[in-house]
């Protein structure tokens, strides 16, 4: 026995896979298919035949997806950058937690009187474990490359890219400068300044990320409801 609703549901599922056709767009296509089925049914076809012919008239899902992809690429890119920024903020939060854990562990070990070499190795292990999320994030970003960004807000995209690249460079550069250039006698004091500087940069990037996320995410929200 042919079940029309099941057939339509299955047909709809063939669009949702790649995130190219939004649910609203799918429901618009569904409306069209239902219209066709009613009209074809009125002209004497069985429900099953009407469904088959109607789906055929609408076109092959993969071809339709290709056309939708051309139109929706801007929105897709915004979504990707949005997730990238979310990732960065998550990373910052994770980083803070990792630093805190490392600091606590270091203090604990110092109090317990653990030997310097052992504690250093342990702290590095904790750091590595905590930061292992980074390659995962990088992989995700890498996966997201591809497709065309026709309607991407270029200004914001470039600014985000610069921020995400420049901020870590400045931070790391500061650290290197601290160890290489600064006079050992001034090391303790300079560490405080670098600490605050790094924190300020980090905070700036996070604030920027929130603003950029808002900017990128805003156009996704459909104006029509």
């Amino acid at each position, binding site marked *: 026995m042919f079940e029309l609703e099941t057939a339509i549901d299955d047909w709809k599922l063939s669009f949702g896979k790649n995130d190219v056709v939004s649910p609203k767009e799918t429901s*618009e296509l569904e409306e069209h298919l*239902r219209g*066709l089925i009613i009209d074809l049914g009125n002209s004497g076809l069985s429900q099953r035949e009407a469904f088959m012919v109607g789906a055929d008239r609408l076109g092959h899902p993969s071809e339709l997806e290709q056309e*939708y992809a051309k139109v929706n690429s801007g929105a897709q890119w915004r979504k990707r950058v949005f997730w990238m920024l979310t990732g960065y903020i998550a990373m910052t939060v994770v980083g803070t937690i990792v630093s805190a854990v490392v600091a606590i562990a270091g203090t604990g070990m110092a109090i317990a009187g653990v030997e310097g070499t052992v504690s250093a190795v342990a702290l590095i292990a904790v750091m590595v474990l905590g930061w292992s999320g980074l390659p995962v994030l990088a992989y995700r970003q890498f996966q997201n490359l591809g497709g065309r960004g026709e309607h991407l807000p270029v200004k914001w995209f470039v600014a985000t890219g610069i921020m995400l690249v420049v901020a870590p460079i400045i931070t790391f550069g500061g650290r290197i400068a601290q160890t290489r250039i600064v006079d050992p006698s001034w090391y303790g004091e300079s560490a405080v300044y670098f600490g605050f500087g790094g924190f300020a940069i980090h905070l700036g990037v996070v604030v920027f990320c929130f603003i950029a996320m808002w900017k990128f995410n805003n156009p996704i929200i459909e104006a029509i409801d």
Partner: protein
Amino acid sequence: MVSKELVAASTKPLVLAVLSRSESYGYAIIQEIREHSGGHLEWSEGMLYPVLHRMEKEKLILASWKVGENGRKRKYYRLSASGTRAIEAERQQWFAVHETLASFWGTKACLS
């Protein structure tokens, strides 16, 4: 039968032409084009929607979801001010092509 490429190229002016009469939704737009073309224009009907969405992005048409007579939600499209202006530009282009070809081949004999 009109070729796929030509149908694709003419979708935008056809949509503008249909919507210049009244607001409409996807299925009805297709029906109207089919009637007007005497069945000569056929294409994968789903292809209309990406075109509609592009035109919506270009602000040529405006869209709103309404409940249709069947009680289901339907997306209605109507012309925007810039869409109305775009019609004239499209008309000039298509007539330019048409007149050029007609000057070679002559206009189609009027059957009525």
